[in-house]
């Protein structure tokens, strides 16, 4: 009884390390394929469209609603202490440092990462990748690399848009509806938010999340069991693993950047 349990534990442990190793090797091969994209900007532009442009709507809407809700809730608490002018820094810091990169990465995994996995997985299931190999076209360079690079480039831009739209949303609620002073809102924000400490670190976070989410998405697709069920499982794994990776990495990055 115990022996069987131990055996399955060891098996799943080995499986985990096998997948980790395979994904690291895969990442290396994708990175090696990136330079071959230079003469083919068309491929990248098409992927940027499906990964980045089509994610704009959900990012802008979520950013707006998060910013407006933050503004409303923070105002209700801050007004008790007569410090409703610090609405600006509170909203800006929480968006730029944490919520912008993290929520964008989670939405990105759901909106774009799952689509990338399903697309590559279905290409594999319908033998399109094998056909490419037979025609001496490397699918890693032709299919995977542009998708990876598009995700990697899109996420920081989407995160910046999320934060900016969120701040505008809280400005609209705080200054427009609740009557916080316009000048105090911006000037307090500017005096508390540091370019290097907060904005750049937030961008670094979103770059890391972009790399991890795109990596997981293309790897799961490329590694999927080439059946209907296998592709659906791979898509689910993309979203779940991306969420775990983003939340775990966010803690580590926050401790590294703002820990002292």
């Amino acid at each position: 009884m115990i022996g069987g349990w131990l055996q399955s534990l060891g098996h799943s442990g080995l499986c985990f390390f096998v997948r980790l190793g395979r994904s690291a090797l895969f990442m290396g091969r994708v990175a090696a394929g990136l330079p071959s994209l230079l003469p083919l900007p068309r491929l990248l532009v098409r992927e940027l469209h499906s990964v980045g442009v089509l994610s704009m709507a959900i990012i802008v809407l979520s950013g707006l609603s998060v910013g407006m809700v933050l503004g409303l809730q923070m105002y209700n608490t801050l007004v008790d202490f007569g410090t409703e002018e610090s609405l600006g820094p509170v909203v800006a810091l929480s968006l730029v440092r944490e919520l912008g990169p993290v929520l964008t990465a989670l939405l990105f995994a759901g909106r774009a990462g799952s689509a990338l996995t399903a697309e590559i997985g279905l290409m594999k299931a319908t033998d399109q990748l094998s056909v490419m190999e037979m025609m001496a076209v490397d699918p890693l360079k032709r299919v995977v690399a542009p998708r990876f690079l598009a995700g990697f480039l899109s996420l920081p831009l989407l995160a910046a848009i999320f934060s900016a739209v969120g701040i505008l949303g809280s400005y609209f609620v705080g200054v427009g509806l609740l009557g916080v002073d316009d000048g105090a809102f911006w000037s307090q924000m500017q005096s508390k938010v540091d370019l290097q400490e907060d904005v750049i670190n937030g961008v670094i976070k979103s770059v890391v999340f972009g790399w991890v989410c795109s990596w997981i998405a293309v790897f799961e697709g490329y590694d999927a069991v080439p059946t209907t069920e296998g592709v659906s499982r791979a898509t689910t794994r993309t979203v779940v693993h991306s969420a775990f990776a983003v939340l775990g990495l966010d803690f580590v990055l926050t401790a590294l950047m703002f820990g002292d």
Partner: protein
Amino acid sequence: MNRERTIEVSVGIFVAAGLAALFMLAMKVSNLSALGERGGYTLTARFENVGGLKVRSPVRIGGVRVGHVTAIDYDMQNYEAIVTLVVDRRYDRLPEDTSASIYTAGLLGEQFIGLEPGGSESFLGDGGEIVQTQSALVLENLIGHFLYSKAAEGS
């Protein structure tokens, strides 16, 4: 071709929007436009007690933010805290007998350095030292004094 063009245009708009958002975060949200390290000169001031003053705390003259604290050290020779502050180049005509005090914004707010210009004819330059200083008001000490004096009255 037409569809290809639409895709290219929309990607262009997307990248431009992302860069514009980054630009807004840098210029409008953070302190880049207010004060940089570039156009400032440093002053030092010695305090007995800096209270809750921190690096990046504001420096104000008459309530106007003119600079910030860049370093806080402790001098083991004289047993005093040394505060280094950067003041924007625009405010380079501070008289030599300017005094510095540590104030608290509101009862529980952040602490900042307030400068009061004196009447001297010569001005503080880069690396100058503010001689007249007044330490931070430590609320706990005040309350302690108040309680002791009350107790002394009662007995």
